[in-house]
């Protein structure tokens, strides 16, 4: 049975880039959430956690309005000569970053919080700058958190459907990701292709989680020396 590989490549590309972006954006954000005592900290945490409870169709719908030609972001992108983001890979990237953010930020925040104040104070007494402290002390201690965040962010983006359905436009090679392709095959009663893609997705998800749990287990054991 020939497999349509295009949605697979597209999905991996989308999930990979989303995870990368989220690690870059999410790390400082999670660090701030872990350490800040600002009065609005919990409000920020709630906004970050919103995609956990909002139906994806709601997220997709409002993104469609915001990013469209009549929305504030859409007007900005148009004035920059970029056109509008809906129905483009870039638009999916933006949507995925927003949609998967809590899955990256929250594990990181938990990991940073569990580092505690002590190691940071000790590093300071040894004349480490904040940046040095972060990279030499915090990151190694929070390694399981980084791994969890990366894996969850990736897997969650792979499973994204409602948002893509709203602002994707089902364009082969650009926005026709795996979840939409499977949906299409089911709708047109092409169950064979749907089975192949779905089984592949389930197998992938299982392997990812298995790897996560095994590696996390090893890291925890090696830390508990």
């Amino acid at each position, binding site marked *: 049975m020939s497999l349509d590989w295009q949605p697979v490549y597209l999905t991996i590309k989308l999930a990979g880039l989303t995870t990368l972006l989220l690690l870059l954006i999410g790390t400082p954000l999670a660090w701030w959430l872990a350490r800040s005592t600002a009065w609005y900290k919990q409000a920020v945490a709630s906004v970050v956690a919103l995609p956990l409870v909002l139906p994806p169709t709601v997220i997709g719908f409002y993104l469609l309005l915001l990013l*469209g030609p009549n929305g504030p972001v859409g007007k900005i992108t148009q004035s920059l000569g970029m056109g509008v983001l809906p129905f483009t890979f870039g638009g999916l990237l933006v949507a995925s970053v927003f949609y998967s953010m809590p899955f990256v930020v929250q594990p990181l925040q938990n990991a940073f919080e569990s580092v505690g104040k002590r190691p940071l104070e000790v590093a300071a007494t040894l004349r480490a700058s904040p940046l040095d402290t972060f990279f030499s002390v915090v990151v190694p201690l929070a390694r399981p958190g980084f791994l969890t965040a990366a894996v969850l962010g990736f897997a969650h983006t792979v499973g994204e459907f409602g948002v893509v359905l709203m602002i994707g436009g089902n364009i082969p090679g650009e926005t026709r990701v795996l979840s939409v392709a499977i949906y299409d095959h089911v709708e047109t009663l092409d169950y064979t292709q749907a089975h192949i893609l779905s089984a592949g997705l389930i197998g992938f998800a299982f392997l990812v989680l298995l790897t996560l749990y095994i590696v996390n287990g090893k890291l925890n054991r090696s830390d508990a020396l």
Partner: protein
Amino acid sequence: MNHRMQCWRGHTLLAAFLLIAALPAVHAGEVSVAVAANFTEAARELTARFAAATGHRARLSFGSTGQLYAQISNGAPYEVFLAADSERPRKVDSTGHAVRGSRFTYAVGALLMVSDKEGMFDDGPAFLEAGDFQRIAIANPDTAPYGLAAQQVLEALGMWQPLQRKIVRGNSIAQTYQFVATGNTDIGFIAQSQAVSRNARNGTAFGSSWQVPAELYDPIEQQAVLLTRGADNAAAAAFIDFLKSDDARTIIAGFGYSVPYLNTAQR
């Protein structure tokens, strides 16, 4: 009158009252109807008229014709199927999900090319060939008959391959309409009935529109069929009969469809 007779009178009155109150419940049936997305507004108005005329309630579910057909094939509890083509009702018939002989054409649809922006085009083919637009929305040809018609038009104009990168597929004609109406695509192919509804709803027409000549696509013959689930439902049979009535046909024609055998002024 003694106490016993008073009790009997009270009970008789109560029984009579309950019987009378129960009568409408005995007569008012319910029918579950699967409706193709393009027919949404028309179906809602028909349902209201149907309830007023017969007392029966129709529960409507909307989706693209292909999606509804897939659900029916897998046992979805619909009793009447209002498709946007004749192919799916024929398939439903041949796979034994429909009551024989109940299939008929309830409307003939028309395709319209529109844009949210004013003055974008008058001559559709010339505009498409010039290609001075970023995105064009059509319904998914695999699941929506209006999308298939749009594909046929583009193929007839020799523009199907050249426009591939610009085509955005909505999963139903309803989503396609949403893409065009919100300006997220520059132009799109929608159902004429959707433009008529918009006009009726808020008095505005699309900025630009081109009535697609009927010879560029296969006629969109929308057929209805009574499903086996509704074979014993009086309300379902009543709904089918209602669709064939002059009352219903006038309403359907009012939404921009052509209606076969309409007794009033022919379209």
